[in-house]
């Protein structure tokens, strides 16, 4: 089903753009992959197994061998306030137990679909950066400075021009 509200908003603000066709709500439903945003299992993904009521869902994330993201969130009821629905969905029956769930996640490659998303990559990079050791911190700093140096060297002319233009603009305004 189309997301009527946001599509209308889009058309009002930017009428020259086409209606986005793949704009869909991410539904809270059985099989939806959610990211846990708060609490002990922050930044871990889990699958919705059943819906308790308007604010709570039963989620589970069985520990899978290779992934750091799939790290064993126990089966429990979580509040939707602490969850973020993702675009990834698995076809499962309601209240599936661990064995069946692991099988379904494997065959439908849910892990793969999640880790492909830019969102997942950003989280992984953020966590990698946060868990850096001192030597790597030094290397990152060096690399950023080298990058900045190369960019400035390449665009020296444009940067000087931009700087002069902005000064001219300020002078004109004043």
């Amino acid at each position, binding site marked *: 089903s189309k*997301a009527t*509200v946001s599509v209308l908003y889009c058309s009002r603000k930017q009428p020259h753009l086409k209606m986005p066709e793949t704009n869909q*709500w*991410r*539904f*809270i*439903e*059985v099989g939806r992959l959610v990211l846990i945003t*708060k609490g002990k299992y922050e930044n871990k993904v889990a699958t919705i197994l*059943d*819906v*308790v*009521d*308007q604010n709570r869902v*039963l989620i589970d994330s069985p520990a899978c061998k290779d992934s750091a993201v799939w790290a064993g969130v*126990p*089966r*429990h*009821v979580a509040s*939707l*306030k602490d969850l973020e*629905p993702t675009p990834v969905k698995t076809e499962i*029956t*309601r*209240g599936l*137990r661990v064995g069946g769930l692991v099988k379904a996640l494997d065959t439908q490659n849910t892990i793969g679909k999640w880790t492909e998303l830019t969102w997942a990559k950003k989280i992984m990079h953020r966590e990698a950066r946060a868990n850096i050791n001192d030597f790597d911190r030094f290397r990152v700093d060096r690399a950023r400075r080298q990058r900045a140096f190369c960019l400035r060297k390449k665009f020296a002319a444009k940067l000087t021009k931009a700087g002069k233009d902005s000064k001219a603009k300020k002078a004109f305004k004043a």
Partner: protein
Amino acid sequence: TLDLASAHLRHYEVVGRATPTEACPAPKIFRHHCFAPNHVVAKTKFWKFMREYHKVKRANGEVFGVRELKEKRPGVIKNFAVQLRWYSRTGPVNTSKEIRDTHLARGVSRIFNELSGQHRASFSNIQVIRTCTKAPKDCTRPNVTQFHNAKVRFPLIHRVRVPKKSLRAPFTAKAP
């Protein structure tokens, strides 16, 4: 446990009887299960029950044990029907409520919160008469039956994002 962290009431079972006397050497043993924040209050509830219905005071009785009752199937969502008697400002009211939850203790805690919010009935003014698990076809309340759909789905519309405590600020650049 992870689940009962949000439940302020727990499910207890208290077993006790009147102390034996010459007149009655083998008094009846009672098992009373109740919802209380801790085992101390559970025993209080037990003695209140014994006093009001069985004419046994705490001074004349003995408790054999208090045990917390754990949920048998914590991974399964159940529909609980709770029959209550609560005291409003004008008198007692009998109510039956249905709630959907994994743990009975948490379901009952939520019902107590609901009664306190909607009817200003506090813990001491509520008596849980009986609780049972109902099959989906036997449930009548729409707040519970609306989730009895294998393909239930809904979007999260108008999500209000609350920032983390460490990121909260008294003044922000944008209106919320």
